[in-house]
């Protein structure tokens, strides 16, 4: 048998062995057997010294060809088997991906905070500063500086917790207004502030009354602030909170610290204005109070009402949350039942 024929025989036998190897070890065994230093191909190559110089390169080239072929067959078979093994393993590793994931404890913000944060972000985007006023305020700032002198009938609307004759728990975040006004340097631009916070009223707690609740007060004072600006701003707030598909209406109201004063209603989102229990059959939901800052309030803060003017608005996040999420009892916000708190895990 010529060396070529021997090589051909080895090749064919090798390829068959490789093909039939069904585990990686067998492939490795074939490799060692065939291509190892003591393997038959090496032996054939060793027999080349008996060939003529003309034959030698031919056989050499053929031997290399056979070796490469076998090597590539081995590599290929190895890959095949590895892949099969991996596939088998993957099948075996299959799990029920619908089992729940491992818990990572995660808390969430209070629903009132969510609403406050949303509005803070909206107004900061329009250049408002956030102001945190004190919860214990002087009667002077909470009432008198807001044009509510002692014995003003409008004080009846806000029954108050007093600490002393002159110190009280603020009944409105508007109490920040005079302090913001007197502290502001108008040479640095307009005053644009938003004051969110807790307020207190001397009310007996029930489903619709709470002695503690929240308010957000906005105040803008500059040389050219108009009631149209107020209307635009209130519409923006209503759209942010309820969506822009609803109509906003302004109607006259009364607050001692604004003149003109308005209240803003939004089309009832529950019935689309047709009238339902949520809107008490009116088709409208009262969402905020506002107005143009009363000249007296500006004057008392040392601001010339002939030169400067502005608007103020106030709204209640508690009321918003009740309307928006259908919360039927305001006490839920302060009892902190985890079954209640955990429902508000997302915005919107």
């Amino acid at each position, binding site marked *: 048998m010529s060396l070529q024929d021997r090589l051909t025989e080895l090749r064919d036998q090798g390829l068959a062995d490789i093909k039939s190897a069904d585990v990686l070890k067998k492939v490795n065994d074939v490799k060692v057997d065939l291509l190892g230093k003591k393997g038959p191909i090496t032996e054939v190559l060793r027999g080349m010294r008996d060939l003529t110089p003309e034959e030698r390169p031919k056989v050499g080239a053929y031997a290399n060809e056979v070796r490469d072929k076998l090597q590539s067959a081995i590599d290929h078979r190895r890959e095949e088997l590895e892949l099969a093994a991996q596939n088998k393993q993957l099948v075996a590793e299959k799990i029920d991906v619908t089992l729940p994931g491992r818990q990572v404890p*995660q808390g*969430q*913000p209070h629903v009132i905070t969510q609403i406050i944060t949303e509005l803070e972000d909206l107004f900061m985007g329009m250049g408002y*500063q956030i102001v945190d006023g004190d919860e214990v305020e002087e009667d002077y700032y909470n009432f008198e500086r807001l044009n509510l002198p002692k014995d003003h009938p409008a004080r009846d609307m806000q029954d108050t917790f007093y600490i002393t004759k002159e110190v009280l728990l603020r009944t409105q975040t508007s109490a920040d207004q005079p302090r913001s006004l007197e502290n502001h340097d108008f040479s640095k631009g307009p005053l644009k502030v938003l004051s969110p916070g807790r307020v207190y009223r001397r009310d007996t707690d029930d489903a619709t009354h709470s002695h503690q609740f929240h308010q957000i007060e906005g105040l803008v004072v500059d040389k050219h602030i108009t009631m149209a600006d107020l209307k635009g701003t209130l519409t923006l707030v209503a759209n942010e909170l309820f969506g822009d598909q609803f109509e906003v209406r302004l*109607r006259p109201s009364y607050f001692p610290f604004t*003149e003109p004063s308005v209240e803003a209603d939004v089309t009832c989102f529950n019935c689309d204005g047709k009238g339902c229990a949520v809107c008490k059959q*009116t088709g409208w939901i009262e969402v905020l109070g506002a107005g143009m800052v*009363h*000249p007296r309030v500006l004057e008392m803060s040392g601001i010339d009402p002939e030169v400067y003017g502005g608007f103020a608005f106030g709204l209640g996040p508690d009321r918003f949350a009740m309307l928006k999420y259908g919360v039927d009892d305001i006490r839920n916000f302060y009892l*902190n039942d985890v079954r209640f708190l955990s429902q508000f895990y997302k915005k919107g």
Partner: protein
Amino acid sequence: MRISYAWLRDYLKLDIPADELAEKIERTAVEVDGVIRPSDGLKKVVVGDVLECVPHPDSDHLHICQVDVGEADPIQIVCGAPNVAAGEKVIVALPNSWIGGHTKIKRSKMRGVVSNGMLCALDELGFDEKLVPKEVADGIFILPADAKPGEPVFSYIGMDDEIIDMSVTPNRGDMLSMNGTAHELAAIYDQKPTMPTVELHEDATELADDQLSVTVQADEQAVPMYKMRLIKNVTIKPSPLWLQIRIWNAGMRPINNVVDATNYILMQYGQPLHAFNFDSLTAGQVNVRFAKAGEQLTTLDGEKRDLAETDLVICSDDRPICLAGTMGGLDSEVTDKTTAIALEGAIFDAVKIRKTAHNHNLHSEASMRYERGIDHSATETALDAAAALIAELSDGTVATGVVVGRDEDVQPAVVKISLSRLNHVLGTELSLDTVADIFRRLDFPTTIDGETYTVTVPARRWDIHIPADLIEEVARLYGYDNLPSTLPTGQPTIGKLNETQQIIRDSRKLMESAGLTQAISYSLTTEAKAKSFALHASEVTKLDFPMSSERSALRLNLISGLLDDLAYNNARKEHDVALYEEGRVFFSQPEQVRPKEVEHIAGAITGSMVQTAWDTEATPVDFYQIKGIVAGYLKSLALAAPVSYATSTTHPEMHPGRTADIYVGDDLVGFVGEIHPATAKAYKVRETYVFELDLDALIAQPKEHQQYQPISKFPSITRDVAMLIDNQVTNAAIVKLITDKGGAHLQKVQLFDVYNGKHVPAGKKSLAYTLTYQDQNGTLVDDEITKAFEKVLTALTDTLGAEIR
């Protein structure tokens, strides 16, 4: 204020639906609570004529009536009312009719006798019992003789009216009257209202001044106007039905002709009036003054009241007979036997009346109007109108002349405003004529000079004094719907959170990421809870007049509120709770009128933070869980000074062996630990771990100046040490010693095992640490590290008595 649409039509030509009118009022003037239709829900309630009325044979009070209800044959109805009689026109609820309270009336048998319906009293038609005249309260209501049998009954008793229930804001006292409302609607609809006129016939034979005298001792501020009229020869009786209807549709109870007349004029003019029984006056003498300390007065409601020196009183011969502007006295009340009336038309100071109404808790239709102001120009007209009406209804005579105790000169307000100012504030481009037309509709006499309006405000609109008030009038009548909608322009400003606000917001997020849910608890609590868990001693800030002891003091801590929350959850079988709260606590400051408000952040956890699941065992929370939360949070604040924890036994509400005070550098910033079992019991909560941090103090702490540290390219080497050591020796002490003695290359000390089970001797524990060494500039030499490590071991043995294992 309830406005009868029927009455309103006396003033104006209005044919729009009541709902539309209500909406218009709401958009232009004042809030409307709703439109009341008294006949809503009522059906088949008709006029009946009682043809025959005989006693029921088997009853001592029932009557069998044959009633003509406009059909061919009369129907038989059994009635138990004591006042039923033949010849009366009555209210009949036919079979299958609906009456008040969603009640259906069916044919029935009463003691064996068929009854085809029911004869009704007013309250059975849904009248509020408080509005039903007393004389008809105990029986069926008798209709006028000319009522037509079979016709719906509603028009006979005013139930076909539509009543607009307005919620009048304090500034619009003018709308607490029909006249004022009519003026307002006249402006809205651009009509000229037909105002009531007064036809008063005075009896020339009697001069009021001869029999009645009035002195006002109180100052002019308190009593700017006090006038009286004398009406003689009156007969007290029920009012005619038309008047009763107006009275009850206005939400008041008809009493008698005199009282109803004064109430009617009150509704019409907004001017409170008071009728005194003239014979109860001493020698026809009336004086008005402030009450004296110790004086008493029994008011109409039978209440004996101690008067205050701020109360204005009407006296006769200096004896109080009436609490001015709020309620009359019992002794001078008009009764069935009264024959002469002294009628008061006066104005009292709003603040004084408010105080009196508040102090005596007497809020009447009169006091409500005095508090909001009165049309000073209409007082005498109203007095005349009431006198005329009383005389008419009671067959009396009005003595000639008004007795004047005080009269003031009423000057209308004159307010100037320019068109440009108006447009500047409203953001509009209204024309000179548009605005002038609005003032014309309001019936405010106006002159125009250039672009400036000079507006003479009638006394009936006493709420208007300044240009801003006129701007409001123009804006609301022009219509808020017609205003443009813009956003403020002008110099741009930066809107961003300041550092404190940013840290507070971040703190909330960090707590939430650590698994705590935000709670908002009450700031007001009991005094005991307020001062518990306090980080620093302070007086409690207490309310002057709390509504309950539960909400009487401002909190000095947040934990007590969180424990209340946990208790609420615990009571509802929610035992796994992890909450935090961020908010104010209130430290009183002796030299300040207000307490210092400090932001705190606190947490409370109980049960497990991870629930039992298919692959997880619920692990009960413990000290180290809450400490981990606190430590992770504090780390993220990048405080410059080191944070340390020291055993604390100073908080009486906390477990003395499981509480640590938290320091940043040398500053106490909070504490963390388990609440004392006695505290848990008192709050009705289970084993609970809490922390409270002074957030303001943390915000004020210097922050680490953050700078990139090059990451060493050279490998680190670790050495483990395990030791047996006395139980008393703290981890903190060991770590400090290792760190102090560790040498320049010691990077990290990590505790990886703690054991104090049965394999260690009593009083000892086993601790194991990994020490990590690394050099920034080169590869560490093993010998060098071994030397450094040996030093640590020696120190541990020598200093802390550790037994290295």
